[in-house]
């Protein structure tokens, strides 16, 4: 059983520190993943919190048919889709808030992604389509395999393979525009 699953099981058995451990281990990655939907790190943080609240209140059963992380990201994606569906026509933040968002976004990138070249790739992701952003984030930054991504994005493995290919092409073009060559693509 992976660590997340272990912590969650402890939480279900009444040990609140289980959830604290899950928040500690998955919060940053989850915020960056959700930022792909919202393009606003503060809202992404809210949604990550919302995801953890779902675990605390609803206590959904984790059956262990996939990694705990895959399961958690699937819940987070549902939260994000719900958010986007209800707020698609709303402007999320005022201009005065924009510098703070940028600052928090950068500090999260620095602390979670660490490598400079990966940070550049992460910035370029922001210019891609939502599906491309999601699939590339899960591939490069969370190191999910296609099967796990298919589970999170509720698609078939074959669809994910196509999506990854098209997303890579699009990312390559975006990086080329900025004169950056990334050999791993």
């Amino acid at each position, binding site marked *: 059983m992976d660590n997340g699953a272990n912590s969650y099981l402890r939480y279900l058995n009444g040990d609140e520190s289980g959830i604290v451990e899950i*928040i500690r281990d998955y919060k940053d990655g989850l915020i960056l993943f959700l930022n792909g939907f919202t393009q606003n790190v503060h809202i992404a*943080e809210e949604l990550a*919190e919302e995801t*953890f*609240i779902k675990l605390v*209140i609803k206590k959904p059963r984790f059956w262990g048919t996939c990694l705990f992380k895959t399961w958690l990201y699937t819940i987070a994606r549902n939260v994000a889709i719900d958010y986007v569906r209800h707020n698609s026509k709303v402007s999320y933040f005022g201009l005065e808030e924009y510098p703070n968002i940028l600052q928090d976004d950068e500090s999260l990138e620095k602390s979670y992604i660490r490598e400079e070249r990966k940070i550049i790739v992460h910035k370029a992701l922001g210019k891609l389509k939502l599906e491309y952003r999601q699939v590339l984030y899960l591939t490069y930054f969370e190191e999910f395999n296609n099967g796990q991504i298919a589970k999170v994005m509720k698609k078939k493995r074959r669809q994910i393979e196509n999506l990854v290919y098209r997303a890579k092409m699009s990312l390559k073009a975006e990086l080329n525009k900025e004169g950056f060559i990334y050999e791993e693509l």
Partner: protein
Amino acid sequence: MKNYEEMAESVFQRSREIIIRRAKKRKKIIRVTSSILCSCLVVLLGVGVLQNDMLTTHGNTSGGDRTENPIEESGPVNYSDLIGNKDTFTNPFNEELFSQFPAYSADIAAFDESLLYDCTAILEGKITDMYLKEYAFTVANDKFGEGGVLNSGRSTIVYELSIEKVWYGDMKIGQTVVLEDQYFFPDEIFSMKSGKSYVIPIYDVGNKISTFSTEVVSGDIERESIFSTVYPYHPQIEVTDSGYAVTTDWKTLTAREKRNIIMDVELGEYASFYKDKMVLVPEDIFSAQMGILIKNIKG
């Protein structure tokens, strides 16, 4: 940004608030429901006493030939009482369907009865079978060079509907019509299920599935059926023993006598929009209003 300890504290704090709020809401519902039930009971007792008196006065001791109906005849009605056994709300097939059918997020125009202008028929019948159909094809795309193609795919749900009543259209009772929908109401309670009866407006969408692309290069896009549900994004009208369970966006059908349906079952997040928008329309009223609606729409 919060660190993990701050976030954990906030998560617990907000969870506690939500739980308290829900408990309060539940209490309020119980309070309101009990008062309504008490009032109903008093009224029913009153009516009972009155009727008994009248029967005695007129010397008529017969109880009439009313069929036994466990559902009260006025006031709100529970969805679970209408539909019957709770186990039939969901079925294993739907779970599989939910996991396989790709989720789309889009802005959807709200339902309006004017959508029926294009409908071919309005049918009442039982779903005798339903299954998922997959289409794989390639579409022309010159994004990566001239003559390029992209692999693409679509999923549809196919329903077989055994017609029990034709409200509008040229079809015959007893005929089985196949419906094929590219979209699907994503809720285990409200999605159409095999073995249940519905009133469904259908329309002709042609024999090719929608691919969102002008040029399909290869693959099979021939639909199983030319018919599709007119508006698959809300719960279809469900036929029950006590009448028709209708969403309130059917303005004409719900314009007259109706009873609110209390959704005493757990709905998914998308479906919760319809939680307080379901009414039960008695059969005779439904029939009359459907006549008016068809006259308005189809002249």
